[in-house]
């Protein structure tokens, strides 16, 4: 329980002239569509429940109009919920008085906006300092914090520029710096990277992940892009028509869609950007380096394979030999060392398939999957990659090596 940073219970927002009446209709089992037809009121968010753990990146994903922005704005009460509880560190912020709410907004959570929402009349520094400036007059300390925050996002040297002089990516870095300056526990990011072009966007995603390694903020990240959700989310909540239809880790969502909606959402996903070496690798055939060519040949014949990996006693990858070379070596009385191929192409278990294609074309042997201590974990054969991309479950590992 202590883990949960944000808990929302039955949070609902009805837009329109009489939200309470809308609430009653919802309680009586009417759907969003029925309420819209009968009363003209829009159910923005319908009884949402979830918990966000401290230090995790929680992604809320859904199509346009599914209520993502409304939901995230109820977490800091930019939009007041019609009903339900929003517990931040166990405290229901729906009940807070305006000055208490201001304190929470100043110290506990910051927001990053889709269209950056930088103040055009303020310099980068004065934008970054804004959240501190509203807290009080201590200019010197505030400036130091703001500069540090700008440095964190790689914008030192730009403090005196105006937002319009910066590129989109840089502007959003300012947005991020501004949000980080008052060192909040919680970051709310509403489609923070959606306005950026794809390459910059990927950079920003990576940077966010890098920052997160050291910051360990609790991040609620909104997106309508599944790729983005899968890349950065520790857990993902899927929204449809104001309701949350599934919450789970990226793998859970992909492998066990809760219903047709989620399934349709994930069916177009580019698997090459989701599946990793870990998901498709096979158990490697390997031998210790203190054996000779004869043993190698025998092992390969037994398994019916044309190459075998060589490891040392601690399973560290040393090289590989092919069946052809081994047969030659036996004939000419060469040692294993003489025929060992040393420059193998290796990948790590978390390498995405998309990043493997180039490596595969350059090598005739299967790719070796090694961990960060160069221990051989598995191999990747061409057929597995193609099979996995075609959606063939036989080639995708649930949680272990085939």
């Amino acid at each position: 329980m202590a883990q949960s940073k944000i808990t929302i219970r039955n949070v609902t927002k009805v837009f329109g002239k009489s939200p309470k009446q809308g609430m009653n209709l919802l309680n009586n089992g009417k759907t969003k569509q029925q309420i819209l037809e009968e009363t003209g009121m829009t159910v923005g968010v319908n009884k949402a429940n979830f918990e966000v753990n401290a230090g995790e990146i929680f992604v809320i994903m859904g199509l346009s109009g599914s209520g993502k922005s409304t939901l995230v704005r109820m977490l800091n009460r930019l939009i007041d919920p019609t009903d339900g509880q929003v517990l931040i560190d166990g405290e229901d912020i729906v009940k807070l008085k305006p000055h208490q709410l201001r304190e929470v907004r100043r110290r506990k959570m910051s927001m990053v906006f889709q269209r950056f929402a930088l103040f055009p009349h303020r310099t980068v520094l004065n934008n970054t300092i804004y959240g501190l400036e509203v807290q009080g007059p201590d200019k010197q300390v505030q400036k130091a914090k703001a500069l540090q925050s700008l440095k964190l996002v790689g914008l030192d040297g730009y403090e005196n520029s105006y937002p319009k002089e910066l590129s989109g990516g840089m502007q959003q870095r300012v947005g991020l710096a501004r949000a980080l300056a008052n060192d909040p526990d919680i970051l709310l990011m509403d489609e923070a990277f959606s306005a950026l072009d794809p390459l910059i966007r990927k950079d920003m995603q990576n940077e966010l992940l890098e920052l997160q390694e050291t910051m360990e903020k609790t991040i609620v990240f909104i997106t309508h892009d599944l790729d983005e959700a899968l890349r950065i989310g520790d857990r993902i909540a899927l929204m449809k028509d104001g309701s949350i239809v599934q919450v789970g880790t990226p793998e859970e969502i992909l492998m066990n869609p809760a219903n047709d909606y989620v399934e349709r959402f994930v069916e177009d996903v580019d698997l090459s950007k989701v599946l990793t070496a870990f998901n498709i690798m096979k158990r490697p055939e390997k031998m210790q380096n203190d054996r000779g060519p004869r043993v190698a040949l025998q092992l390969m014949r037994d398994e019916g394979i044309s190459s075998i990996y060589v490891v040392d006693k601690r399973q560290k990858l040393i090289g590989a030999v092919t069946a052809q070379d081994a047969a030659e070596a036996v004939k000419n009385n060469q040692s294993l060392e003489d025929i060992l191929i040393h420059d193998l192409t290796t990948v790590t278990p978390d390498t995405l398939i998309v990043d493997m294609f180039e490596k595969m074309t350059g090598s005739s042997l299967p790719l070796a999957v090694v961990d960060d201590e160069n221990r051989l974990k598995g191999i990747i054969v061409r057929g597995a990659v193609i099979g996995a991309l075609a959606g063939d479950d036989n080639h995708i590992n649930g949680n272990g090596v085939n």
Partner: protein
Amino acid sequence: MQLFPKLPLAEWVEQAVDFLTDNLGPFFEALTEGIEGFVEFIVLILSSIPAVVLIAIFTGLAWWASRWTIALFTAVGLLLIQNLGYWDGTIDTLALVLSSVIISIIIGVPIGIWISQSDRSRNVITPILDFMQTMPAFVYLIPAILFFGIGVVPGIIASVIFAMPPTIRLTNLGIRQVPEDLIEAANAFGSTTNQKLFKVQLPLATPTIMAGINQSIMLALSMVVIASLVGAPGLGADVYRAVTQLRVGTGFEAGLAIVILAIVLDRISQNIGSTKQQ
């Protein structure tokens, strides 16, 4: 043909005015003296500066606020006015316009801010502004005389009523036009209403507010001839005298002086808002 007896609207208005003059007499007197003192103060300052220096100041201001062509026009135009002998009248008119505009700003900007904060207050004030602007400006002279006597003060009061609406309207508009996501950002970082107003809304509304003030200046200037009907001195009085005496030449000269002053004030005030933004 009367369908039913005429409503005694005129009588009611007169009774109301009588009531006000009877009961608020001391208040109006104090106000009159205050405004009169203010105008005299401005006239004193402006006329204590030698004409050449004042012309140089205006030229410099025009140069700073806009292009050199406007600066050149300002220099030539004001020198022409001085040469034709309308300098004192110009100073009186300038004082009248400046006083009216300053009062319009002091009252108008806060009202504009107020009605930008709630739709209800806006819905109350907007019809009043429409009324103030569509009522023929002459009509304001009558209560103005009754409350404030003859002279420059009723002229200023009538000018303020006529000239203030654009400042109010555009202050309101400027604040409401601030993009929603900037307001959200200000709120999300825990701003108070005042912090949001002074750190975000007003700075971003400044160009629009300046446009409103520019319109107010022009409207106040358009009132100078009317104000002269109740005894306000200045170029308006010169025009008015020329018209009643059918002196075409003088009328043209005084009218030209007003036009020159109008162009100078318009160009300078128009560009200050946008210059400040850069």
